[in-house]
């Protein structure tokens, strides 16, 4: 995003060199005191679990025979584990198809609401955002009823059409069904990110565009989309993380489609079932670390690419 640097920075008083070095030590400690509450919580709930997961991933504990250090064996086993790669491939496919659709819809919605041509734009804004306020578990249960192919809406449609056309729980459609739920849940959230980015565009840019004779489409391509680039990068990164961490939706739908959604349907479900059903905490920690690394690398690449464009 192009932001003008705040003028206060120029006016900030530059302290005399001598005084600064004299008080350096003390003020650093003072600063630490301010940061400490965050730092303690951060260390406790973020760093410690990561460190502990890494530690766990280097051991193998058996029901019989106890705990042993195994070095990188768990990682080697995971990299050769077809179940892990099947789940991983599934979330990558999900990412490549669902995220562009969801962000595209969110973008269109944000531009429409921002266009000032929409009546009752506040109403649309809240309605599109509303699904995000529904707890994910409730949302999935609700969609589960709609998808039900014996008694749900899908069944009614099939009765009406006279054949089994709508089969959301079939093997070929299950990922689409999940994608539909996720899109429904998160379009509003992403729309809000885009919309708030659109609101901070200085209005004089629009006035200048109007004076230059630019139409609404030209305003979108020339002003709005460039201004949205930062927001799009952020939303994409969030969505990549979300896709790799897909868990709630398939895990809840599993009770309705138990044979279609396996215990290793997504990497997160695999990690969950390894530890909670199989007591393979070490393998589970390894999945978590590997997925964390992959997610971090991909998110970083997206960010680099996004900011490189910005500099150009």
């Amino acid at each position, binding site marked *: 995003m192009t932001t003008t640097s705040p003028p206060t920075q120029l006016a900030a008083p530059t302290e005399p060199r001598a005084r600064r070095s004299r008080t350096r030590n003390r003020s650093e400690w003072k600063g630490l005191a301010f940061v400490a509450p965050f730092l303690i919580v951060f260390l406790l*709930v973020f760093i410690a679990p990561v460190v502990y997961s890494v530690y766990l991933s280097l051991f193998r504990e058996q029901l019989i025979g106890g705990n042993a250090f195994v070095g990188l064996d768990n990682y080697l086993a995971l990299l050769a584990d077809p179940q892990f790669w099947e789940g991983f491939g599934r979330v990558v496919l999900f990412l490549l198809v669902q995220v562009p659709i969801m962000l595209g819809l969110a973008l269109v919605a944000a531009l429409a609401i921002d266009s000032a041509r929409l009546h009752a734009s506040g109403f649309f804004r809240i309605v599109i955002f509303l699904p995000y306020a529904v707890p994910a578990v409730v949302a999935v249960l609700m969609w589960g009823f709609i998808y039900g192919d014996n008694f749900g809406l899908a069944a009614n449609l099939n009765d009406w059409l006279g054949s089994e056309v709508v089969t959301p729980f079939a093997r070929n459609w299950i990922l689409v069904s999940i994608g539909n739920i996720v899109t429904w849940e998160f379009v509003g959230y992403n729309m809000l990110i885009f919309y708030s980015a659109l609101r901070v565009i200085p209005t004089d840019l629009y006035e200048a565009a109007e004076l230059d004779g630019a139409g609404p489409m030209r305003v979108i391509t020339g002003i709005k989309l460039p201004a949205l680039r930062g927001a799009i990068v952020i939303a994409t990164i969030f969505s990549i993380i979300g896709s790799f961490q897909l868990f709630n939706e398939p895990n809840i739908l599993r009770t309705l489609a138990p044979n279609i959604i396996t215990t290793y349907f997504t990497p997160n479900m695999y990690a969950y079932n390894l530890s909670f059903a199989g007591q393979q905490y070490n393998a589970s920690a390894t999945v978590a670390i590997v997925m964390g690394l992959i997610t971090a690398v991909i998110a970083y690449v997206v960010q680099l690419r996004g900011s490189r464009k910005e500099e150009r």
Partner: protein
Amino acid sequence: MSIARSAARRTLSVVAAAALVGSLAACSAGGSDAAGSATDLDAALEAGGKLTYWSWTPSAEAQVAAFEKAYPNVDVELVNAGTNTEEYTKLQNAIKAGSGAPDVVQIEYYAIPQFALADSLVDLSAYGLDDLEDQYSASTWGSVNVDGKLVGLPQDSGPMALFYNASVFDQYGIAVPTTWDEYVQAARDLHAADPTKYIASDTGDSGFTTSMIWQAGGRPFGIDGTDITIDLADEGTQKWTGVWNQLVQEDLLATTPGWSDEWFKGLADGSIASLVIGAWMPGVLESSVPDAAGDWRVAPMPTYDGTPVAAENGGGGQSVVKQSKNPALAAAFLRWLNSDPESIDIFLESGGFPSTTADLEDPDFVGLDYDYFGGQKINEVLTQASKDVASGWSYLPYQVYANSIFGDTVGQSYANKVDLDEGLADWQDQLVEYGNSQGFTVDK
């Protein structure tokens, strides 16, 4: 998504952290291995104290209240820690963490070996509770004895029977099947007469499958300490798949997952016309399928050759966890819970099916009319089934895990409508691999 993920991850790290504490505390975890006798139990009841009891049985609340009234010095805190696997996960975590486990816990028979093997349960023969053997049916007593240790007392039992919707059967002129061949034919006739109706619903249920293999004479799991054999292609297993493959491959089973809302609807409207299930089902039908009152009847489970034989399906008991600070008091509560007539009466009133022979043979219980079942004396059938349960069955010491991957393997055969033997072979491979990776010696 991201919120859910971070929650899952947080849970994971809490578990992870708990596991660390567990390994640190491991040397002191098994410290309450006390020896005692029946008189110790009476003394413990007299002295009193506090106990925690995890259970999801509908009768637990009334039982605890009656117990506290009889033994005012004892304070029992009842916690519903979730139903079956949900509770086992919590129990497993608490045991691993070294604290937080209840004193007394409800565990189903299929899951008992898993906790017994990890040496998490108190051997109750130390308190003389092995003297109670005569009070329980042979199959349930066998289920709470693991490796020569008495690791729990039986509560309910689930000898299998055929529950069928008589109004649907009558409407289409279908006779109650007594053999599996007749059952398959009934399935064909019913579905042909009305394509919306199915003889049963089955999308692959590990508990059902293992019980059916049990009845067919299969004994796929052999356990001798940490030496295990798994043979999911033995004669009995193939006898069952021979029958069930026909139903799966000819599309004669509804594909409604068990215990879903749709399943209960199907039981009510007749589209699922029968259930082969444990004797605890009447209470569930009465409370969850009230609309079908009067329609359902109970018959003995069909057999392969006409010789009556049944299997257990579900059911469970209670155990004392080794973590308990007061195992004598816990054992005393457990003794009362599963052998005192007052407690068992409360249990029977809640619709439970007993494991105690005195009740299984009690004429009042056997002769009870059930309005829901059109006045049928269903306990005549069910108590006979209890006597017909085949012996010699055992579950794996990691059956909870085994059941969790049933859908990944056997479930695929159901979903693709192909030979169940393929799915069972796949299940076997994964169970062998898991067992060996966990330090067991597993042979096919």
